[in-house]
């Protein structure tokens, strides 16, 4: 039992590391304005699937890690991801029975909130340039949600993470 839990932990960690790599992968030109929020998406999935294991504490660590990678103010992404984790934990029972496109709409809203908070912190800091594009990542994230859901669900079932 203990070994299985350990294995599950490793799978979760690996998916988050993969999300980090995708989050800093160099993208050409305009595409970086539409970069999906990989870390937020992964976090939402695990919050829905295993709300007893992945939650707000995980969100704080993930967020600080993302801040370091992005070079943003320490706590900016942590703050945003804590809110996202909180909302997904409140909604997980409902989200589980939603159809795929309904989930995608919720993901759009969640990532949108994430972006909004990041935008606020950045405008306090004074670096925000084109705030009108800040919802583009939310859109791309929502469009990618089915892919994320199926691949992570596949992983979770294959390794029996619980």
């Amino acid at each position, binding site marked *: 039992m203990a070994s299985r839990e350990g294995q599950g932990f490793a799978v979760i960690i690996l998916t988050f590391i993969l999300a980090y790599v995708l989050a*800093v992968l160099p993208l050409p030109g305009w595409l970086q304005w539409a970069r999906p929020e990989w870390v937020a998406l992964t976090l939402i999935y695990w919050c829905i699937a295993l709300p007893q294991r992945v939650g707000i504490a995980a969100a704080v660590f993930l967020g600080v890690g993302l801040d370091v990678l992005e070079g943003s103010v*320490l706590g*900016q992404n942590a703050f945003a991801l804590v809110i996202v984790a909180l909302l997904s934990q409140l909604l997980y029972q409902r989200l589980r029975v939603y159809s795929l496109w309904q989930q995608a709409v919720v993901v759009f809203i969640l990532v949108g909130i994430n972006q909004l908070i990041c935008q606020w912190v950045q405008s306090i800091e004074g670096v925000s340039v084109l705030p009108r594009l800040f919802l583009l990542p939310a859109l791309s994230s929502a469009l990618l949600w089915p892919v994320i859901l199926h691949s992570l669900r596949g992983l979770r079932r294959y390794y029996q993470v619980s």
Partner: protein
Amino acid sequence: MVVVVGLIVADLRYNKLQAARAVLDTLAYPVFWVADLPTRLSEWTETHAQTRAQLLESNDRLRRENLILQGRSQQMASLQGENVRLRKLLNSSALLRDDVLVAELIGVSPDPERLQLVLDKGANDGVFIGQPLIDADGLMGQIVEVGSAVSRALLITDVTHSVPVQVNRNGVRAIAEGSGELGALEIRHVSSNTDIQVGDLLVTSGLGGRFPEGYPVAVVTVVERDSGETFARVLAVPSAALDRTRHVLLVFTTRTARAD
């Protein structure tokens, strides 16, 4: 919740987390390294899939280039001597010699509003905060965070960056501020009757003591003078290839070395 808000305040308001950031930056190095793999791989295939003829051709071209550069640098020593003598006549301080360290880019900030680079050199190599960064064509930016083996540089076009410049033609001083876009700098507070033209080369003025004097920064592309406005609107394009360079040079001036 309190923890994260505390973090934001501590970092933003009091700048208390420099040391922690340096450690975390080093921990982040593997992630950047992995994300950089595709680029590395394509570079590797490019170099290893070249034919013999291509290699010979490029070798030939580099040799010619080297010859030309050597020829140009022959006069460097005598010119430097002359410069020192003239400066002595003018009673100004001797020109400082700059040493450079080659660093490789391992990542760019994923946030398009934050124009930062991640480099593979850190405190172990003597990199320090505020160190100027150049490429073959001009000034790129300065170091803002240093880990033990990795550092983070802010580009001159970031909205939070400004650099003191002067027009190479006549020495008019100005401040070049980043616009947030890679291809544009804004020269602020230039009065409408200042002698500045399209095509003027802007070089670092050395004022403020952060950037050594005389590195090319940008070329003026737009000068709009409106008689109703106090200041002219002046835009410039950075000389350095900010979005293409993979190898950059970290500048050590003797003065900064002594100050440290």
